């Protein structure tokens, strides 16, 4: 047997068929009904694919589906798609397996059956889950095409996105060479498939010309099989590897030319096909999926191991870079670093631990144009997902921040993305310097409340018309404002004192190291070493005696900062030294207030 007898890249459905037939054949003697046996189960195709992708390095050859590659990727081939689960469209029932004459056939991983299917009463239905996925909002260009796999690491001084382009161009010959080494039978079928694919591409082109969808809008309908209940959550970033299907026949079912007697009924029953037409929203039948954390977006640099001095070195260079962007303000840079490292660790009704939202004050219109821009650029190059919201009255009064279920009658029921539907770990910059005096309308007030709620509780309310659901989010909030923002209460308020405007530059290597540093340190576990507790308590009591105005929030902020400070040095446990550093920062910060 040895290698695969089929081309997984170009003809994954062939593999699906083959494995299914094999499985059926092996279970045949026992006389069991395959529809019941393989319902909600894998019959070996996933193993075959896993072997190919991860053991034989096939992963790198799988093209990534996005708005641009959609044009040339052929249907019924294996693709990779990274996206955020934007909406869950429930499940779909289909005839999983049926007997065509005397051979068993399966419809799994297919939109429709090429063969005539028996009536429903004679078969068991299978189910699959539908997810509407979009590219991660606010994903920065450096993080888009990079892959976590060793293949990419060799070329690190080249821009990763360029590299991605290059790799994809390399892909096609790869595919063909693979295809060449296939045996005759399947290669002819491949050819047929290719022809069919190119024909359908014409169709796509035709349809997209007359589309009302914005051209940059790209989303994917992912069909997931055999999934345990609620495996994916809303707003999770997932990599799906599966079969991209496109069936020209399905697109012709346009509602305009249909005068079927029960079309009105069909319409009302959420036809995914009509509302998310395959010509605009590609389908992926997922075979393998994997949740992605921000770490997966950054290649594991071999140069940076968790040695304390290496970490310290990266930290120092990053602080100096940040202070450069902030006009040589080291205090602000330190605070910014802590802010960038913050992560909500515990959340309950009682308290949220670990979050550190930052409010940089002292920006004027002019300085905001310089430092604000620099700061934004720095964040964009350092973090995988970032988003900036300009807080103008007009924006607040008109923008849709809240994700909302589209409930207008006659329209497909789905969740409309609001600006605050963000993947976990996204950095959100709120620019208050552009705010002028004016009147907020009711929507503006709602939006401000939403932002406030997000900052205070890390929760965004999603509007499902008849009720609202609170969705936990994990977003780091940075506010730049002229004076302390009263609208949006931040944990840490730092007035900026820029002294010089310095040109900011960083090499790609440095950037890479910093990215690695930020994501790694953020994900470091904090130890629960309690030896220092007594000292901390004494310090706090002492501080409270000196200053009666100190409250719960101040003390928690100190603790958060101290832990982040320790983490920024790569330490897992908090030491006295870190505590003193935080106290010093706090002292200097107080002087500025």
């Amino acid at each position, binding site marked *: 047997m040895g290698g695969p007898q089929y081309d997984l890249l170009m003809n994954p459905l062939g593999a699906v068929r083959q494995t299914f037939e094999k499985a059926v054949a092996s279970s045949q003697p026992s006389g069991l009904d395959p529809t019941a046996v393989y*319902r909600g189960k894998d019959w070996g195709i996933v193993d075959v694919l896993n072997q190919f992708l991860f053991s034989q390095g096939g992963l790198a050859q799988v093209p990534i589906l996005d708005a641009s590659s959609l044009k040339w990727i052929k249907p019924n081939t294996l693709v990779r798609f990274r996206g955020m689960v934007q*909406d*869950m469209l*429930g499940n*779909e*029932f289909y005839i999983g397996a049926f007997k065509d004459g005397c051979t068993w056939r399966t*419809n799994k991983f297919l*939109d*429709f*059956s090429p063969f*005539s*299917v028996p009536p*429903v*009463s004679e078969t068991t*239905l299978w189910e699959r889950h539908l997810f509407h996925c979009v590219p991660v909002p606010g994903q920065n260009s450096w993080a888009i095409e990079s892959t976590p796999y060793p293949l990419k690491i060799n070329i690190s001084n080249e821009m990763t996105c360029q590299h991605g382009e290059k790799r994809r161009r390399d892909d096609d010959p790869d595919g063909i060479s693979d295809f060449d080494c296939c045996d005759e039978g399947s290669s002819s079928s491949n050819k047929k498939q290719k022809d069919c694919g190119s024909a359908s591409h014409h169709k796509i082109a035709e349809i997209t010309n007359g589309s009302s969808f914005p051209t940059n809008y790209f989303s994917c309908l992912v069909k997931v099989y055999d999934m345990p*209940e609620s495996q994916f*959550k*809303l*707003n999770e970033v997932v990599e799906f590897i599966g079969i991209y299907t496109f069936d020209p026949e*399905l697109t012709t*079912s346009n509602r305009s030319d*249909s*005068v079927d007697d*029960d*079309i*009105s*009924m*069909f319409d*009302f*029953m959420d*036809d995914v096909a009509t509302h998310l037409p395959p010509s605009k929203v590609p389908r992926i039948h997922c075979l393998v999926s994997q949740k992605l954390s921000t770490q997966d977006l950054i290649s594991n640099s071999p140069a940076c191991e968790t040695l304390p001095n290496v970490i310290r070195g990266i930290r120092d260079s990053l602080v100096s870079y940040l202070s450069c962007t902030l006009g040589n303000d080291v205090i602000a840079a330190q605070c910014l670093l802590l802010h960038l490292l913050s992560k909500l660790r*515990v959340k*309950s*009704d*009682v*308290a949220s*631990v670990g979050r550190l939202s930052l409010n940089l004050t002292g920006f004027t219109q002019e300085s905001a144009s310089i430092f604000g821009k620099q700061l934004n650029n720095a964040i964009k190059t350092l973090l995988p997902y970032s988003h900036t919201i300009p807080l103008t009255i007009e924006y607040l009064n008109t923008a849709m921040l809240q994700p909302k279920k589209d409930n207008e009658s006659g329209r497909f*029921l789905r*969740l409309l993305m609001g600006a605050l539907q963000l993947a976990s770990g996204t950095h959100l910059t709120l620019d208050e310097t552009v705010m002028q005096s004016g009147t907020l309308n009711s929507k503006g007030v709602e939006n401000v409340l939403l932002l406030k709620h997000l900052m205070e509780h890390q929760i965004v309310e999603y509007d*499902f018309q*008849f*009720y609202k659901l609170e969705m*936990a989010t994990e977003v780091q909030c940075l506010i730049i404002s002229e004076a302390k923002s009263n609208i949006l209460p931040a944990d840490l308020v730092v007035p900026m004192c820029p002294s010089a405007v310095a040109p900011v530059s960083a090499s790609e290597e440095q950037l890479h190291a910093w990215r690695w540093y930020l994501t790694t340190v953020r994900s470091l576990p*904090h130890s*629960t*070493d*309690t030896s220092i*507790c007594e000292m*901390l*308590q004494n310090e*706090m*009591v002492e501080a*409270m*005696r000196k200053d*009666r105005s100190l*409250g*719960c929030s101040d*003390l928690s902020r100190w603790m*958060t900062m101290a*832990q982040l400070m320790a983490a920024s040095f790569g330490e897992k446990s908090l030491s006295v030294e870190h505590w003193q550093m935080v106290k010093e920062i706090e002292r200097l910060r107080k002087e500025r207030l």
Partner: protein
Amino acid sequence: MASNGHSSPFGQATPNGNSNSSQTPRRSSRRRTNNSNSSPASSPFPLETPPSRPAGVASTPTTSRRRGTRHNPNATPSTPLSTDDAVPPYSSDRDENDNMETDGQDDTTPVFVWGTNISVQEVNGAILRFLRHFRDARSASESSEAADLMSEGKYMRVVHRIMELEGAESLDIDAHDVFEYDPDLYNKMVRYPLEVLAIFDIVLMDLVARIDPLFEKHIQTRIHNLKSSVCMRNLNPSDIEKMVSIKGMIIRCSSIIPELKEAIFRCLVCGFYSDPVLVDRGRINEPTRCLREECKAMNSMSLVHNRCRFADKQIVKLQETPDEIPEGGTPHTVSVLMHDKLVDAGKPGDRVEITGIYRAMSVRVGPSQRTVKSIFKTYIDCLHLKKTDKSRLQIDDSVNHDANNNAANHEEDDASLYHDKIEKLKELSKLPDIYDRLTRSLAPNIWELDDVKRGLLCQLFGGNALKLGSSGASLRGDINILLVGDPGTSKSQLLQYMHKLSPRGIYTSGRGSSAVGLTAYVTKDPETGETVLESGALVLSDRGVCCIDEFDKMSDNARSMLHEVMEQQTVSIAKAGIIASLNARTSVLACANPSESRYNPRLSVIDNIHLPPTLLSRFDLIYLILDKADEQTDRRLAKHIVSLFFQNPDNSVHEVLDLTTLVAYISYAKKHIHPVLSDEAAEELTRQYVQMRQRGNTPGSRKKVITATARQIESLIRLSEALARMRFSQVVEVGDVAEAFRLLEVALQQSATDHSTGTIDMDLIMTGISASERTRRENILAATRNLVMEKLVTGGPAVRALELLEELKKQSSMEVHLSDLKIALSTLTSEGLVVFHGDTIKRI
């Protein structure tokens, strides 16, 4: 035996007749017999011998598959029902030997619905038996003499009523009843609803025809209240074609779709009208040629719309309710198909429980193509719709509780639906630390203030309202609380939290509220010009909690309006020809700053609060929340924060009830628990009360303390009742009374109040006195008293304190300081034994 139920016993079959047939199902040990002992082959379906083709019967259920298609009543053969009455109703089907012989004479062969284990006759019989003989166990026990008199089953009565009223077209059948009477029938009904319901309808029609042959309307069976309901997201392929019950919220209704049921065609050539053409598998076939022999024109038939029969149809979208959505999920939706009477039964926004058949419909690729995609659309064919509104707490009618019987029925309903939920609450209530746990769960983000939280908990649970029978006066059960405290002590946060928690909470700020805004006001309707009464905040929060922030900033006028509300619980209006008294059974939770905005320890408590005593006395609990500089508290706070960061947060959190559980717990307790004072508790109450009253009346005091009044004893009763409620206990115990007293003491920090001056001894709050210190002081007090009795004569010359100290030191073995002596002397002063002035002591 019950397990055999599925393998279909064949009821009317002859024991020997079919036993040799190969397809005979296993015979059930318990024979289900048809009561209709004279019944000949009574099946409405064509009969065939079982071995040949069980599919023989399939034709009938398939035509009745769409519930919309009505059977022609004439086509239904009648099931005899005549001799039944002689059979004892309840036991008949369970009796082994019942009517064996009569059955034996029956030549009927069982007919099965194709692909199922349903024997038509058997189900037919079972349904009939159920309809005729089912009796509500509850109502039966109530009116046993009536049952003896009239042996009519519950549903027979309903059928009669429907026939009398003429208007109704459906018979609601509680699935619980079916299960109770015949679990086997229930299982069959849920598994093969299409078939069983078709039989149900036929049996019912038959029954009706028997009672009144002229009754022409079709009565439809509507099953509801299944034993278990499915969560919308758990509907899966195995539920298809089964009866399911789901809960959800209607989010969208389509317009009403007229669905053709019977079509009549007319020949355009000769004008011949065809017979009604019935819907066959979802479509109507237009006759290709005129049916009249003389005409026979081709393609001449056209539809006559006016003479066709249409039925209403509507598609409704149901969305999951928030409680069923797992974390990180979006609500699922499902389409529901409504027919006839169910159209427009629910509006968008209604919470409903739907019983129906889960169906799948294949998706056609295109209108022209006959090819069918392998994908299915699912929907629920609705059989029954029940509106449920459980979004908010159901408010108990504790005052007008005379309609007990009415409520009982309702509660029964609730109990069955929320049975396990309630079990869980009951389990919670048995925890020994439930009181502390509840306290922790209330506003967990607010640090400390445990005793305030306890008081607020009492407010949420409330006491029992009493209506004194003869006079019509009522004693309120609601507890009013006033929070007075320094700024920045999170009073407002507590208020907000309570507002969120209470069923009908209104939150107002004192500064922005006027008297009429709080109570009620009369306005002229701009359109009609009539004067109308508009309710204010207090009336709107009837049976809820009215939270009033900034109570001290309220105008005196507005505040005086509260007098009536807080004791009589009504708002009386006499204005512009409207004289009315509105119910305002609300608990008032107010918060205020001390009169000088910060608590002034030099002033008495009353002076600090600075509210009229008449109003103050209406508050059951008055809390002073003082911002005290205290190292102990600081340390606790520091420890709390540090532990938040260091310890595994789970163990600090897990003992807290979440908001929904807390709300459910409170509402259940309010609704179902009505504790009564036990004798010991009543005794304890009187004893403590007398003690408290004495303390307020100490001679020589400046009467600036909150004195105990009759109102206090009422509030103590309320508090103890609320405390008992928290434990789901029907009896108020001594412990509850003791805790109520403690709460009253803690509120206002009375334990720290100097009763002679009325001021709070700040030292007392900050340091507290240890038990040993207290005994030491008592010893000194006793020694001093003796000394005073010995040395001083009433009205005699004054003695200097230092002299007394010397004497004391000589006598006692302990170390005595001047401060100790002063404390002792001040106690003696309050007892009225001596006068202590500057440095001199005089006995009086």
